[in-house]
């Protein structure tokens, strides 16, 4: 008995230790990868493809890791911290990469520690072998479900309405028959109205008119509410910018370009120099060749022929501007197999440049130089205050929740109705980061209720999120 007891305790002990070790290991790993992911997003994702296998400005991570595996790890650390130093020392791998990618210089990251770099590598390896991010049980979007229910209800109502209508018709038929029978019994002549008479009778006209008015007003009001809403609005933009290419295939993080979303009310349409951080290297597009990316160059004044920014670009005449970019388009055209500067070639160059000029100028902007006039897709009325950082940074709402699957949109489309009802519904359902953010500590009662189990969540509406002056002031 005693012996058994002892064994039991021992095995329990070892089990507990095993369990603890397991947890410890798994948490350490998870933290490493998470940190690696953050570091990757912040530092590397600009130039290295997020899918780790394709090329972007910089080499794909998968090949890079394979190639660097042949050298001591310290060399890779040195490379990341200051690649130019390693190249000048003549490190064979460094020189190899440089020859392949110059003149693009890898940004030095002197602040990354060995541990940081290990985290990043762990994350990259995780992504390559598919073990990261860990697969979570897919949470079904709440809004979708609600919609489903709504349409179900409509069918039920329609069904009930149909049944009642049939019932009413049957009853009316019975009543008429009874009346006829009664009249026949009493010997009165049976008044049989023709269909026309029936249809033009006061009662029918009255009922129909009433129904028309009710239906008409209902539709008018409903449609009037919709006035000014632009769901599914997808205007043509001055640049055929493809979110599929950028956010989809190349997996560039939304907030890399829309860097206002985390800190401002505006998510911010990226400035041209943001585009240039990649397009200094990627000078031709996969879809449109020189046509679209040249617009960026012509806006900011980057000469792709020489890889230099043009001095006093603002002051150049339209002719001088045309000369620079036509040269670029021509040269690139000539790189195609069998292309010569014949009539077709000239027409190609001229057409493309004319298109670029048309896209970059407008009634109010006569010059090619200067900002690109994007067309706003998401428009809120002036009396609505919306703040991106409140939702993105504080509320930790995914961009896709409101903007839809942007990564699949060739032309950006307004996904949500952006109606007040839509906002309010979300505010009623969405939980705030109540326990995570010390800001909410002043809501003492809610904390107590959560603790006591009287309440399972605190929604935005619970902290005043559907009050007028949260959005209107």
């Amino acid at each position, binding site marked *: 008995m005693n012996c058994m007891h002892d064994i039991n305790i021992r095995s329990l002990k070892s089990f507990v230790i095993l369990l603890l070790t397991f947890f410890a290991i798994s948490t350490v790993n998870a933290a490493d990868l998470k940190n690696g992911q953050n570091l990757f997003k912040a530092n590397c994702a600009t130039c290295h493809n997020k899918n780790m296998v394709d090329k972007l400005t910089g080499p794909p991570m998968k090949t890079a890791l394979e190639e660097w595996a042949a050298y001591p790890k310290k060399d890779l650390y040195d490379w990341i911290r200051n690649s130019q130093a390693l190249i000048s020392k003549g490190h064979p791998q460094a020189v190899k990469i440089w020859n392949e990618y110059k003149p693009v210089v890898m940004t030095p990251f002197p602040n990354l520690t060995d541990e940081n770099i290990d985290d990043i590598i762990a994350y990259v390896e995780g992504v390559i072998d598919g073990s990261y991010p860990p697969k979570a049980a897919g949470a079904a979007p709440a809004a979708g479900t609600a919609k489903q229910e709504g349409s179900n209800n409509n069918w039920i109502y329609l069904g009930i309405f149909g049944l009642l209508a049939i019932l009413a018709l049957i009853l009316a038929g019975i009543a008429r028959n009874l009346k006829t029978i009664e009249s026949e019994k009493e010997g009165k002549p049976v008044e049989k109205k023709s269909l026309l008479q029936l249809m033009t009778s006061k009662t029918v006209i009255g009922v129909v008119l009433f129904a028309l008015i009710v239906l008409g007003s209902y539709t008018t009001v409903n449609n*009037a509410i919709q*006035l000014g809403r*632009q769901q599914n*609005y997808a*205007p043509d933009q001055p640049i055929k910018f493809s979110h599929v290419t950028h956010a989809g295939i190349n997996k560039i993080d939304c907030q890399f370009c829309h860097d*206002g979303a985390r*800190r*401002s*009310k*505006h998510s*911010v*349409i*990226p*400035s*041209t*120099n*943001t585009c240039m951080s990649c397009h200094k290297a990627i000078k031709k597009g996969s879809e449109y060749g020189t046509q679209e990316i040249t617009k960026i160059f012509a*806006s*900011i004044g980057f000469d792709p022929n020489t890889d230099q920014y043009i001095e006093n670009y603002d002051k150049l005449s339209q002719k001088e501007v045309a000369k620079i970019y036509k040269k670029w388009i021509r040269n690139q055209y000539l790189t195609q197999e069998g292309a010569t500067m014949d009539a077709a070639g000239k027409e190609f160059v001229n057409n493309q440049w004319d298109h670029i000029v048309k896209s970059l100028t407008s009634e109010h902007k006569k010059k090619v130089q*200067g*900002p*690109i*006039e*994007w*067309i*706003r897709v998401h*428009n809120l*009325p*002036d*009396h609505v*205050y919306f*703040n991106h*950082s*409140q939702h993105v*940074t*504080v509320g930790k709402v995914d961009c896709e929740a409101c903007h839809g699957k942007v990564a699949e949109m060739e032309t950006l489309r307004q996904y949500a109705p952006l109606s007040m009802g839509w906002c309010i519904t979300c505010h009623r359902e969405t939980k705030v980061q109540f326990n*995570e*953010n*010390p*800001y909410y*500590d*002043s*809501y*003492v*009662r*809610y904390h107590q209720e959560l603790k006591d189990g009287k309440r399972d969540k605190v929604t935005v509406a619970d*902290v*005043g999120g559907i*009050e*007028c*002056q*949260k959005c*209107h*002031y």
Partner: protein
Amino acid sequence: MSELNQGYWGSSEEFTNDEAFVNSLHNEFYELPILNKLSEEESEKSNGHKRRDFLKYLGFSIGAATIAASCETPIRKALPYVSKPDAIVPGVANYYASSFVKGNDVLPIVVKTREGRPIKIEGNTLSAFSGGGTSARAQASVLDLYDVGRYKSPGKNDGKGGLKKTKWEDLDKEIKTKLSAGGNIRIVSNTITSPSMNAVIQQFITAYPTAQHVTYDPYSSSAILQANEKSFGKRVFPGYDFSKAQIVVNFGADFLGTWVSPVEYTNSWSKTRKIKNFEKPELSRLIQYESNMSYTGSNADNRMLIRPSEQGLAIVKLYNAVAALTGAASLPVSGTLKNAKSEKSFQSVAKDLLANKNAGKASIVLSDSNNIAEQIIINKINDLLGNYGQTIDLNNYSNQRKGIDSDMVKLINEMKSGSVNTLIILGEANPVYDLPDGNEFAAGLKKVGLSVSLSTVPNETSAACTYVAPSNHYLESWGDIQPRKNSYYVVQPTISPLFKTRQAEQSLLAWANSPVDDFSTFIQNIWKNTLFSQQSEYSDFQSFWNNSLHNGLIELPSQSGSASVAVDIASYAAAVTKPGNGLEVKYYEPMGVGFGAYANNPWLQEMPDPVTRTVWTTVVHIPLKWDGDSEFEYYKNLKKDGLYVDFKLGKNTVKDIPIVRQFGQMSDTIAIPVGYGRTVGNPSALNVGNYVINTLVRDADGNVRYWNDNADITPNGDEDKHFASVQLHHTMGVRGKDKSNKVINVDEKAIMNLGNGYQGSLTNRSILKSADVSNFTEKLEELKEFRAEAAHLNSQNLYPGYDYLYKEGHHWGMSIDLNACTGCGACQVACISENNVPIVGKKEVHRQHEMTWLRIDRYYYGDVESPNVFYQPMMCQHCDNAPCENVCPVNATNHSAEGLNQMAYNRCVGTRYCANNCPFKVRRFNWADYTTADLFIRNESNPMPDGESLFYEENLTRLVLNPDVTVRSRGVIEKCSLCVQRIQEGKLRAKTEMRELKESDIKPACATACPAGAIKFGDQNMPEGTLKKEWNDPTTYFVLEELNVRGKIGYKMRVTNKNSELI
């Protein structure tokens, strides 16, 4: 009997039961809706709105809406930066430390910019000089940047009022050629506080040795400078420290409002007016000797009436009284003051001052007199009281007044004799307008070969010059200021120049062929050579300079030294002004438009004068006499404010100035503000008020005298049809006639007849609570009882209320210290600036359509002949049991869980029930589309009376709008939101930083603007918060607390510290 038993009053109408006044009390909106009004008044006119027009509009709008609805989506564009500056995140405000500079008005500030454009001025809280406060003028200065009337390029006056534009290079060439041709060069400016600008002028003088710099000030203090030179051998304007002065005896200086450095003075004076000890309150005492109810006088504890010409006599009498007690030699004096009370007051004042001195405390005796002898005697009094080195500092002196009037007389003579070849006029200096002999100056100007004005905006002087080389607005400029000897502040540009202008310093450097032609480098050199060596915190200049730019200031420690008057004053006793005869007039600088330089600014034009509460007009203050019952005797039987008089002085007559009947105005004296009647300027300045500066005179020393005798006013039977005084708008008291036609307080009557215990209007109303130090304990007890009674009544409630909601999260509130508040109006203009509050113009204000969210109510109390004044900033009280919310048929106004009374403009349909039901009368209705926010503005005829222009019509002006606040359109009610946009911003900051909210996160615009620190905002739920502390203060009360509206603006009782011997 000179005191009224009913306590507080706002105007004489309240005693005489004026019919219009009584009617206005019953109607929130005293006139008919605008369409009826227009159809009544203008039906015969072709541009009037008629019924058929209305139908047309109706048809048009329905049609337009239908078409608009079926049209394609309007294309809205978004233009990102090409290269985004690192500092700018679109949607996030940036703040830059800088300084407000306009003429001789300077103030350290912080500028709020959005997407690179300045939209709001805040105080610089790091500055000990201003204490973080601002003035209405500084607040409004941001609008000047977007003034459509500004000079847009350099040019040559064509003599017909137009400007022939030139290029800077051509202008420089022409001016340089003429300058190097030789001859006398004179540079005219108001006082310059900028060390760098002074260095630039020095450099210019080195380049052109025939050049001289002449300084003058519109409201001159040259007598003080000259007196100090004679008394102490230093021609400086002293630094005053009111925070150490237990007693201030003031002969007419408006130091809280307009005199020299009002923000600095208000900041230090108000420190002595906050009650800390409730057992035995300690307050400073302000004794004011004056003829008119000046703004500073209205804040005085004791106001003694003397005629303007008696000031010299009064000063000598005070000296003799002080001398008698200190054993100093007395001065010969003859004559008595007209006012018997004032005549016998000096013994008591002297006793008071000496007792104070013997208790080891300091005081200040000061005067704005421009008579040298009077100022020397004032110096001697201060000397006898030992104030030098304590409250008056000649070491760390002020740089804010340097102008000597006689220099200007000399210059005019030179100009007229033709010996001045070149005249350069800097900055805001406008001698043609603001000198008493402006026409002489203009005549002289014609004989000057080359005259160049460097003004930012067209003014009377620049229009008379041959060239205009317009300077930048200060928000586009580099610069520095040194208001006190040891305090330096930076001016840095917050936006590129909007037009082809160039800052004055830069122009002078260019004309002087300076080796350093970039002014920002020039300033850095000056700071490197002077200031950098005086500090030890920074070892290299760049970090010193960067830090100075960041903080906006360097304030060096200073040691104030004592001084004594080194001149025999006996000889000066005879040189003081002699009492004058007849009707005497005192000229004063109004708070808003100043000496005319601010007349271009509609925000300031529409800021009511704190005392008269008039806007957009000059007024003549006339005295009134009360018979102790219900009859008043008005001067020349002028029975109504706004009646026109013709003002005569010597040969000059100024026609058609409206009058106000002014309590506290001494009999046989009147007062007139200067600064109106501009003839060159933008639409806000033109045809507003009357020009009176030409009726001023100079004394034998050449100093301008700001009073005159033997004046005359004659009623001409006409009146100002659009006289705009907001005093009787939105009044809160309920009064009426009883059977015997006597005015009664309806509330009191109701109590007598029906007994106590009813809620609502049947109890005595608590709007104002005041006390004096002498009866403080008693009044405090009274207040405590009153509040206990109100609390008891309010607790008898069937409804459970929403306290459980308010206890969660935040519950905002405010506290206003009525004792620190001086009524300056900075908060009001700050509110206009922050919240896009429309400016409506004189005629609309006349119709009670002013839109200000925050008004400062002015009440009189005490002695009717010379009453005390009570200023009460009044805005939405955010009642937790709000009467306005219950009556809104569309729920456009409702309550938030944070205790805010919310207003949803887009839901409002304009029934105005809420405004009618608001006991505080703080809700404002947009009668017209004042901000041109409506979509179809161009399809309507101008809604303003007589086609007055709308102030936000121009795109340039609209740049000043705060993008975080909705611009309201016609037909909606608006009101104070407690700056909800700032609350939301502050909360968001805390949330993104993952921390609890701090009090410093949120400060409403009014609170940051206040120079006295009287307004405090906070969260009731914050355990150790400011609000808890302020509201637990026994002097705190809530307006109309007994109505159980549960307002959340706590007011702290106004307490005076009267010298009882002077009453």
